[in-house]
């Protein structure tokens, strides 16, 4: 059976910009525009990059009260959702019974009463929505937002660009959102968040309006369209996990270094899948953990490359690896045992039968510049 490949509402806009379109998570998406990944990456670090991420899954969790919705979702994720202030957003993970990660996601306390707004990964969205819906109590419902598009505007000039359309965006703190009129479009969900390590915004709005907003933003000389290729190199340098690569059903949030996303109350009280494993990993330590790795020289070590200790014994695999344009050299992430996880530990990465000397480094590779 061949599944029909989907398109976002911006498909024609990407083609008009001469993007190279590739299949990704069931969608035809732009991997790069004619200037190429290096230029797009650097532009986003220095100016403002505009990304179409409408393939991602958006939904509402609806109940009679915020507390009811938050409590229902707390049974599936380890984040403190009851502690969400209005218009606040948190990063979390949908967990399996054994503490493995089914997906990572963003959860906001909606401006609408009794609603949480949730964004999940494109490749996981059908499974996520089915999993969430199946595990909600009868009085809490999942409402898909299939007619909503999603843009990301990222980079040090993103705030100035968006403020030219509505100055109130300057007042949005990191990991919060506002409903704002932007370019004549009412109630755009503008959150201060992203996946590049830079300051920036994510904008959710009706599919019918997204072409207008896309064109308005691109009309600003500080903004260029950025494809999935640079999205990947930017998040890798930013030390951010990519689901299906750096995190999956075999990794726990603690192994992945995501313990910052699990509040004290949840660690102590539990009430989410995998609490035993997570509690255990937090108290008695970890068998393995995600680390950053800098290979010497210029040769990138890709996902799947064997990680060896100084004695040449295999101790793990690279989960994401490539060339970091801002670092101007190869960068990688992978899992190693505790004995090899300290920054400065010498390792080897095996690329085409050659053992490349490498060093464990602190993540991120490029300092995050979130507006806190």
């Amino acid at each position, binding site marked *: 059976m061949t599944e029909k490949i989907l398109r976002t509402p911006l498909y024609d806009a990407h083609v008009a910009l001469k993007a190279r379109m590739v299949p990704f998570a069931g969608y035809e998406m732009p*991997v*790069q525009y004619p200037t*190429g*990944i*290096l*230029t797009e*990456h650097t532009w986003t670090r220095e100016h403002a990059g505009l990304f179409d991420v409408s393939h991602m899954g958006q939904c509402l969790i609806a109940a009679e009260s915020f507390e009811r919705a938050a409590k229902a979702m707390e049974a599936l994720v380890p984040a403190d959702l009851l502690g969400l202030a209005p218009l606040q957003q948190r990063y979390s993970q949908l967990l399996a019974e054994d503490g493995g990660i089914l997906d990572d996601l963003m959860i906001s306390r909606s401006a609408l009463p009794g609603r949480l707004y949730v964004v999940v990964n494109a490749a996981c969205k059908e499974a996520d929505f089915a999993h969430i819906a199946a595990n909600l109590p009868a009085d809490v419902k999942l409402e898909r937002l299939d007619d909503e598009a999603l843009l990301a505007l990222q980079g040090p000039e993103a705030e100035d660009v968006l403020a030219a359309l509505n100055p109130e965006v300057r007042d949005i703190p990191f990991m919060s959102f506002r409903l704002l009129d932007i370019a004549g479009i009412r109630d755009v969900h503008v959150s201060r968040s992203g996946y590049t390590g830079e300051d920036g915004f994510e904008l959710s709005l009706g599919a019918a309006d997204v072409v207008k907003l896309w064109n308005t933003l691109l009309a600003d000389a500080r903004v260029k369209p950025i494809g999935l*290729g*640079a999205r*990947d*190199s930017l998040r890798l340098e930013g030390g951010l996990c990519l689901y299906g690569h750096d995190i999956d059903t075999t990794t726990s949030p603690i192994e992945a270094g995501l313990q910052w996303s699990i509040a004290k109350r949840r660690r102590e009280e539990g009430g989410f899948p995998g609490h035993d494993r997570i509690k255990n990993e937090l108290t008695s330590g970890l068998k393995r953990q995600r680390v950053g790795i800098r290979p010497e020289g*210029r*040769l*990138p070590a*890709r996902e799947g490359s064997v990680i060896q200790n100084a004695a040449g014994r295999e101790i793990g695999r690279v989960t994401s690896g*490539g*060339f970091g*344009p801002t670092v101007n050299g*190869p960068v990688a992430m992978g899992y190693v045992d505790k004995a090899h996880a300290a920054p400065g530990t010498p390792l080897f990465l095996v690329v*085409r039968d050659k053992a490349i000397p490498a060093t464990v480094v602190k993540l991120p590779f490029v300092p995050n510049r979130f507006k806190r």
Partner: protein
Amino acid sequence: MSVKFTEEHEWITVAGGVATVGITTHAAEQLGDVVFVDLPAIGKTVQKGKEAAVVESVKAASEVYAPIDGEIVEVNTSIADEPSLVNSDPEGGAWFMKIRIANPAQLDGMMDRAAYDKFVGK
């Protein structure tokens, strides 16, 4: 001799029994920004259709195949030092390697420019 092309997107020119080999403009465009080139050792014996070099773009690693049997007699160290040359001048200054041809009959059947352009759908 004029330039010939393979279905693996290499170009080849021959002078005095030595083939100069690179990748086509089409191949370079498909690769995107090249950030690393792994060239073979001089003196290495290569076989038609087998890996001779590797180009790494930001996205992925891609093999460059030897278009002909022979021995590597020279490699272009300037593309190892400056991989972006592969994008800016793929069919000129960014040649990859020179191969002393072992079996000239393998040149027969390679495409000329018009046939290659048709092959890549230009």
